[in-house]
């Protein structure tokens, strides 16, 4: 298990996490392959968001380990995870409310910007060039996600669906290798969901980004994911292709509340 095979981007090994007396995750293991879309599903409170939080270093599991790009680690700070190419969006949108959509997305480029603060204060040559260079990149993403019209709007004023899109754009601005999406389609209407599905598939296709996503809409999950992991009460109860999972007895029981 320890030697990372080339197609495995991320390995989760026996991860257990508890808060006080509450066991959020117990002994969860699964692999994530490069370029795939992996869905994590499960009833409310199954530990799906906790799993994402463990992967990007926000929670530190009591036991188990995470191997990312061949490096095994027990605990790491979120900003280091970001540095290694893990980006995410949140269930309850976590945009910077006081900033415009453009500024929000530009923060996603922060890690790639290098010019020191003195040059920035003077706004001379390199600082100016860097700002424009990254703006170009960001504008391409804005174009890709079709949010040109709202770039100068403070995000607090945007409708929910647009905020979700800006948040995805900010995550993409980081040029991640691994993108974690926490319920990207929650609270959207059918049309917005279709748009979002298209964006996710395009990201996976065009940028080759590996995606882990949490989603409640089974139709969406079955349509766009390559593989599915099912969690229930913090334990993994099934893993496989959408069809395999759909036929799994335990999964059906968990969703129908039997056992």
């Amino acid at each position, binding site marked *: 298990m320890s030697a990372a095979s080339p197609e495995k981007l991320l390995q989760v090994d026996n991860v257990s996490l508890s808060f006080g007396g509450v066991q959020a995750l117990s002994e969860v293991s699964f692999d994530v392959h490069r370029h795939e879309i992996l869905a994590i599903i499960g009833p409310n409170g199954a530990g799906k968001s906790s799993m994402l939080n463990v992967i*990007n270093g*926000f929670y530190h599991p009591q036991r188990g380990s995470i191997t990312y790009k061949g490096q095994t680690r027990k605990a790491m*700070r*979120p*900003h280091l*995870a*970001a*540095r290694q190419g893990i*980006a*995410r969006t*949140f269930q309850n949108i*976590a*945009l*910077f*409310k*006081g*900033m415009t959509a453009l*500024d929000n997305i*530009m*923060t*996603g*480029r*922060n*890690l790639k*910007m290098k*010019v020191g*603060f003195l040059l*920035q*204060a*003077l*706004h001379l040559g390199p*600082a*100016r060039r860097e*700002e*424009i260079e990254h*703006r*170009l990149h960001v*504008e391409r993403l804005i174009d890709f996600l079709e949010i040109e019209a709202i770039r100068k709007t403070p995000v607090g004023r945007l409708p929910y669906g647009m905020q979700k899109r800006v948040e995805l754009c*900010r*995550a993409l601005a*980081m040029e991640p290798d691994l993108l974690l999406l926490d319920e990207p389609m929650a609270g959207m209407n059918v049309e917005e969901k279709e748009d979002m599905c298209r964006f996710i598939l395009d990201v996976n296709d065009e940028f080759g980004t590996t995606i882990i996503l949490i989603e409640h809409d089974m139709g969406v999950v079955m349509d766009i994911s390559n593989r599915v992991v099912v969690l229930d009460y913090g334990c993994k109860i099934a893993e496989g292709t959408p069809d395999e999972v759909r036929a799994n007895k335990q999964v059906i029981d968990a969703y129908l509340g039997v056992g």
Partner: protein
Amino acid sequence: MIYREAGNYKTTYAADQAIFTLQLDRVFMTMVMVLAFLVVPLWANEYWLQAVLIPFLIFSLAAIGLNLLTGYAGQLSLGTGGFMAVGAYSTYKLTTAFPDLNILLVFLLAGFFAALVGIVFGLPSLRIKGFYLAVATLAAQFFILWLFNKVGWFYNNNSSGNITAPPRELFGLVVTGAAAKAQVRYLLSLGILTLFALFAKNIVRGRIGRSWMAIRDMDIAAEIIGIRPLHTKLLAFALSSFYCGVAGAMSVFLWLGSAETEAFSIFISFQVLFMVIVGGLGSILGSILGAAFITLLPILLTNVPLLVGLRIPIDLQKHIEQIVFGGLIVFFLIVEPHGLARLWQIMKEKLRRWPFPY
């Protein structure tokens, strides 16, 4: 329909990122600068310069400093006075120990010392937020003043306990201390403020400013996109204290001429905080407008009753000032939490449509 965006095409991202994107804004700003640098020194008398304009410029700088920390990075500080004192006392020590050192360099070094002290008192900001942090900055305020009061080395053990600005020259002109002309001190203050305001504006519209605002708006999300919280907050503390430190140095060397720690008391911290609130949190222009408002207000309150022939006892006047200050703060927070800067913006938007109602 004179002030408008239509017809001002931006064809490059560079043009879109400029501070003043409209032609008319640039013209207006140039006029303000000409007025401030050329007309005012010729026209203003000693009283106006000493009692109004110089303190306004100095407090503008301090308010920009506090706004970087509180308005942009979201870290509340009640220690502004303390950081200003660090700047003032460092300048005094440096210029008395090395009389030949260029006074501008001394100001910069003093700002640097203030920045170091700011970093030390900013360290708790990694673990604590909001009001808790305000208490940590109060520790800075009280401890620093106590230190400068108790340790004679800081004021060269002179009997008065004051620090007095010695005369220092710049381009052959005496710029500090009692011998310096008010016009000269005004111009120097204005120059420093203009440069530093520009630097601040550049910082806040670039990468650093965005990471500050990200930390302010949602620190956890900021960390998850790769912003290092401690690093970012400490940079805010350092830069903010630097500005406050330079302002403190200027307030003794270009304005008061002589001061003791009382000149940097907790009330100064509050006053600068008020400037930031009234002017607008998260706005460089707002800091300057706020400073203008808060420096002018007491002068207005003193002179208006005199003009109508009313004589008010000094302590009553002080209480009235307190009430007006307090009332204004509450009023501004209720009506426009984003302060004068937002009002200015709204006015510009109205102007854009004028003379049509919408």
